[in-house]
């Protein structure tokens, strides 16, 4: 029906303007000199040169990747057993647990992160609890640990839900087949369940790693400004300094690094799956 297909036209125009054009602009700004008119611009690589020759920027990028990596690792290690527990519950319990995990995700990330400030602050509950347990009374807020905690807190639901979905999709008869062929629970898990849940783990990694690399308000709120990540650099360039061209270049670099790491993870999964269990 020709008439109906025309209904999509306004959005196609809108999407070109509001989705595609902004992305092109980021690329354009990244490669042009600041202060130029939109009509006449001069291409340059100076922003990239600036970034890659300044050890401070490189350090920030490295630090962002490291903390995102740590976050992903913790989310995976903690999230997997939780997801497994949920997947093995009966339908009713499973639905309730999934709702319980989804619910906080809908509440403003910023608000949820802010809520930690009180818990972590000096003289706060957590510090006292650690003191009682004999860990002394360490400083918690405005440390790397606090930033890591905030990230895990914000992103672990994605990991749990992804893994849970892939575990639930698992055909129950595969577990029966494995038991039938002589594998006990432990063997069934490592030889059948885990390898088949890897796609969920990979998409979980994607959903945790990417926002962790680019996050800027978690380090700002819980790291207290001492803990500067690549997202904070971009924020600074755009909001405080106003160097949009350099800011665009940095975000372009960030996106490239993200894509590279995701490519690496996917490769790893695929070859890992094939290598698994080879004679």
């Amino acid at each position, binding site marked *: 029906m020709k008439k109906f297909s025309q209904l999509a036209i306004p959005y196609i125009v809108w999407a070109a303007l509001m989705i595609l054009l902004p992305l092109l602009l980021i690329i354009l700004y990244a490669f042009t000199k600041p202060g130029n008119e939109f009509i006449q611009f001069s291409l340059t690589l100076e922003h990239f040169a600036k970034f890659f020759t300044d050890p401070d920027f490189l350090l920030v990028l490295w630090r962002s990747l490291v903390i995102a990596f740590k976050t992903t690792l913790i989310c995976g290690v903690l999230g997997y057993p939780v997801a497994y527990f949920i997947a093995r519950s009966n339908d009713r319990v499973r639905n309730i647990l999934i709702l319980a995990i989804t619910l906080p995700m809908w509440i403003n990330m910023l608000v949820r992160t802010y809520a930690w400030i009180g818990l972590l602050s000096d003289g706060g509950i957590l510090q006292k609890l650690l003191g009682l347990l004999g860990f002394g009374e360490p400083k918690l807020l405005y440390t790397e640990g606090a930033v890591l905690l905030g990230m895990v807190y914000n992103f672990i639901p994605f990991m749990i839900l992804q893994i849970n979905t892939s575990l639930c999709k698992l055909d129950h008869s595969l577990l*029966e087949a494995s038991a039938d062929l002589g594998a006990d629970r432990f063997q069934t898990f490592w030889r059948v369940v885990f390898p088949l849940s890897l796609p969920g783990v990979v998409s979980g990694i994607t959903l945790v790693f990417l926002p962790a690399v680019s996050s800027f308000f978690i380090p700002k709120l819980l790291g207290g400004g001492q803990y500067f990540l690549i997202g904070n650099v971009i924020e600074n360039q755009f909001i405080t300094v106003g160097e949009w061209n350099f800011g665009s270049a940095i975000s372009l670099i960030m996106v490239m690094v993200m894509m590279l790491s995701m490519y690496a993870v996917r490769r790893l999964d695929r070859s890992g799956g094939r290598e698994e269990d080879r004679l």
Partner: protein
Amino acid sequence: MEPKKLIQFRNIVKEFDGQIVLKGVNLDICENEFVTLLGPSGCGKTTLLRILGGFLEATEGQVIFDGQDIAGVPPYKRELNTVFQKYALFPHMNVYQNIAFGLKIKKMSKDVIQQKVMKMLKLIGMEGYEDKNVTLLSGGQQQRVAIARALVNEPKVLLLDEPLGALDLKLRKEMQYELKRIQQEVGITFVYVTHDQEEALTMSDKIVVMKDGEICQVGSPLEIYNEPANRYVANFIGESNILPAVMVEDYKVRFDDITFDCVDHGFRPNEKVDVVIRPEDIDIVEPDKGKLTGEVLSVLFKGVHYEVIVETVPGTTVTVKMHVIGNRDVTSQNGKEKISANDFYVDIEDLDQLDEKEIVARSDAQAWNPETDEYISISHIDCKLEKKLGSYPVTFSTSSGTSVQRTIFVVNQPFVRNEKANEAVMAFNFFKAVDEIKESVALDTDLKTWASAQAWKLTDENESVDISVDYDFDDENIQEGVYNITFSTTGREFKIHTTDYVEEGREVGLTFFPEDIHVMEKMVF
């Protein structure tokens, strides 16, 4: 020598959420037997298999395997393997890894595994497929891999849960032979679950027919086919003529008012029974040589044989008169409205249900605008009916006053009773205009409606019986007049498989040997 009993089910009861799926099943399975659990879905056959496999626990009863109760033994310690309904091949492993799975769990050395897997691939005829991705195999190949994966562990028993269900017809036939061959070659017990009677008959040494969580009959395919224990088994296995009968005395059974010799005995005198005669056991002969005579209703060629339907006892019939009249629409004075309706008959007993809606429907009263063809609603019906036989005038009119008068005949309509066939048929005479018959798109159905034709069981008035319509006018060129219409039920029909052609409509005789009559106990529901 008595074969050794390998598996014994002792009074197995299984309950799911208060629903009893198995009602105390007792069954012995011997060594090297191909046993089929046969029954419709929901009969409990898969549940029984899963209890044997260890995936379910029986609520009550024992499963004895090789002399030991295996109730608490988890699946991975049982000496049997399963081929699952949809194969349950591990999608992240190739053919080789799937088959090697069980051996690797047992920590066998690599070269032993290699040797055994290769042997299995040879058995299933899939050498050279070891590196193939199992998700890319055809259904039949996946099936073979699933069998190999189970058999490589050298189980004492192989359980197969509807393994051919997902395959197409041709492949299914091929796999039936393949499975039988594999079973004979490896020489172990197969317990096979299916709802397909043909599969069961082809492959099994022993068939277990199940219904509603109970075993109906256990026996060899031949026994089950030739001596079904009851109507249910007879119906489920193969095609059959099943009829109610009375066992007059030993070796004498009576049905359709004729007493026949048979080979069955041990029933009470005059006990009500069911009789099965297989279609291929009946021969068609000259009418005077037959034990029964009848008319050939239909002949269908089925590839190897003809399937002939012979009616030995005619059905119940009733003939009514159709009064075909000219079109008698009434047109209003201004020509803007037309109205039409028919006279009709009504049974005095149905008078109570005759409300205005029903009168409009029975008389087919309608009003319309002849220019636009738009319908106009009939706003007023004037008629005084009494619960007495006779004819009563009825007037239909629209809101603008266009009206037509017709007659309702209240009659005491007799119905035809047929005690022998336990049924009754009834229909009414009726009036129709020429155009209404010509315009009918489904005349048979319309005739039944117009005549209010119905048939029912004498023993249960609510159980209706199918009727067919017969008439000999040409509905395309029908003229005014009176026509006979006959409504009839199906009589006693026999299905016969024969290689000789007979003409439809011929009078023939049917004959069979005393041993072809299989007498069964009446089923108690």
